[in-house]
């Protein structure tokens, strides 16, 4: 079963490496992983789709919590949540086929975002099932290029998965900036 795990992490160098390394080392399967900033400065949000039983996902959550840079972990699978993924598909299509492709785009509530004489880029924001169906329907035209962002998700209603502990300025600077190369020229130090 696929689980949607959301991890709120300190936005500092190496955190993605730590999370990816953990999944590799423990043999957890990642279907997709999407990372971006959040409403809280210094906190990034990772949405990880994990394939596995409840026992595996319990271990995923607990092992994630052991990482110092991971602040909060939630499994949205049990929640009512809005789940979305962005897909860009470059599909082969000449003038004669354009109408057929645009009909599909309408049916799947996708968008045509780029057109050239022999191709078109279709954008779709939907859950993976609908995106899968769109892609299957476009396949007969010839898919030249395909990219998917991976799932992002948010719990419906007033409930949030946000971090409640904000940090003071100095601590925030330390936790979000330490480990980064400082700006400006560095003095040359020979070894």
């Amino acid at each position, binding site marked *: 079963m696929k689980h949607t795990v959301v991890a709120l*992490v*300190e936005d500092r*160098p*190496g955190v993605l*490496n*730590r999370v990816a*390394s*953990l999944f590799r*080392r423990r043999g957890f399967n990642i279907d997709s992983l999407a990372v971006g900033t959040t409403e809280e400065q210094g906190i990034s949000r990772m949405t990880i789709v994990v394939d596995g039983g409840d*026992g595996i996902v*319990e*271990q995923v959550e*607990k*092992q994630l*919590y*052991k*990482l*110092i*840079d*991971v*602040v*909060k972990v939630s499994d949205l699978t049990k929640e009512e949540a809005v789940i979305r993924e962005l897909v860009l598909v470059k599909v082969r299509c000449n003038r004669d086929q354009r109408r057929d492709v645009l009909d599909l785009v309408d049916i799947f509530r996708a968008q045509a975002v780029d057109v050239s004489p022999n191709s078109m880029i279709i954008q779709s924001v939907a859950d993976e099932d609908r995106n899968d169906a769109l892609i299957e329907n476009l396949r007969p035209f010839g898919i030249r290029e395909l990219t998917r962002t991976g799932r992002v998700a948010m719990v419906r209603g007033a409930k949030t998965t946000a*971090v409640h*502990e904000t*940090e003071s300025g100095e*601590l925030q600077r*330390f*936790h979000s900036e*330490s*480990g*980064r*190369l*400082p700006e400006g020229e*560095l*003095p*040359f*130090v020979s*070894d």
Partner: protein
Amino acid sequence: MKMSGADIVLESLKRLGVDVVFGYPGGVVLPLYDRLPAHPEVRHILVRHEQGGGHMAEGYAKASGRLGVALATSGPGATNLVTAIQDAMMDSLPTLFITGNVARNLLGKDGFQEADITGITMPAVKHNYLVMRAEDIAYTFAEGAYIATTGRPGPVHIDIPKDVFIDEAEFVWPEKVSIRGYKPATTGHPGQVKKAAEIIDAAERPIIIGGHGVVLGNAHEELRRFAEKTGIPVLNTLLGLGSIPRDHVLSYGMLGMHGSYEANHAASNADVIIGIGNRMDDRALGRFADFNPTAKLIHIDVDPAEHNKNVTAHVPIVGDVKLVLPQLIEAVRQNSHVDWLHWIDDLRQAHGHSMAIPSGPELSVQYIVRRISEMSPDATVVTGVGQHQMWAAQHMKFTRPHQLVTSGGLGTMGFEVPAALGAQVARPGETVWAICGDGGFQMTLQELATMVDARTPVKMAIMNNGYLGMVRQWQELFYQDNYVSVAMTQPDFLKLADAYGIHAIRVTEKEQVDEAIREAEGHAGPVIVDFQVQAEGNVWPMVPAGAALKETVEAPRDASEVRS
């Protein structure tokens, strides 16, 4: 006041109460070494190989419960620490590993002696840092030491580029450390404690498995009180030995691959199992699926990820064992389990031959370690990995926590000599015995020179059988006596000792053992005792790899052997 990054490092170590660092210099840490003489409160012990320095920090941490610190230069110096870092990770030792790196503008440029050491240690540490500004050093050390020593302890690695040691910054020591992603567990959930107490009160054949967490959490008194109030026998994991005195009436010794017959069968026949600060490791539990599937399992650990990792706990309790045990003691009723204890005692009587000390004239490791334990009951004991380690665990009667220093999880051969040095530094004036394998001894014996320099009078007992004994035992039992690459020609350990200026004794007969132990302990400096033991002894009993605890294989019966 502004000071250099190097001074901030040393000032931070002083604030943390660190009085000794095991280190090895090199190009990028020279700015730090340059400032060492200005901070005489921090003793630097020059090791002979960084791996040794790492194990010394571990031995220091394990023998004292305090933070152990090792230091190395970039590149090969740093990578040489990795074995010790992973060892400290597996055995949850509060340790701090400091490395230098190339200057910031050379990072990522593959310069001389550059290694991506934070990338390399990432899966082997509790946490690591690459410090890019001198003003971040003090906070990093405060936070790093806090992480290393709290919750489930573990190694923290701090990597510092050369020019950050040179840069100047204000020294600001944080009054407190606050990490929103790290909140170590404290007391247990009252509902879970109540549930556990009900199961314990109703139990007929309960056992306790006392793990390393009891020792690390300093909860040995609480464990004893809990066992005494409930009347429940205590088994120990390898690293849990010493969490209850071995001569306590409720102490039943070690379970697991080389646990006693009665301990393994008690665990297999119990109706309630209370795991306290143990990680349900395969060497302790045998095949997970058949580790007493009908018993109710209560599992107390500060690390929630240990619950349901290997076996499913009916009542997991997340918390610090030192705080959870008093809650449990309060919640359970006074009880005793006389019939159950008799059942285990009867097994012990009937199967005593399985873990007997050979009674014949041969010089056996079992006899030697038992005599060391009897003649020097308070000594700190450091072991390597293999047969001698298991015999020490079986036959030495540990009386206190932090008494046994051994590489449990990673099983690092060569751990013994440097770790014993670290333990001796942590416990000056006390007796430290290193029980060494003749194989492992040669992996790190260059630290003998460090012992002479540092004046650490460790007593090293080399169990010299000319074999990699445990590997030989497996080849005998599971590979039809096909001995491949296990026989070793050993150097003359007495001449070797002489080269280092270390006093040495050779023992070939059983009758010489006591005198050698007395002589070693009476000598003011380090001593090597070359015990030329029987070549092909096997460790019994044994749970073959992948078998269940109830499938414990006993020693072949031999009337001449009696259980002491």
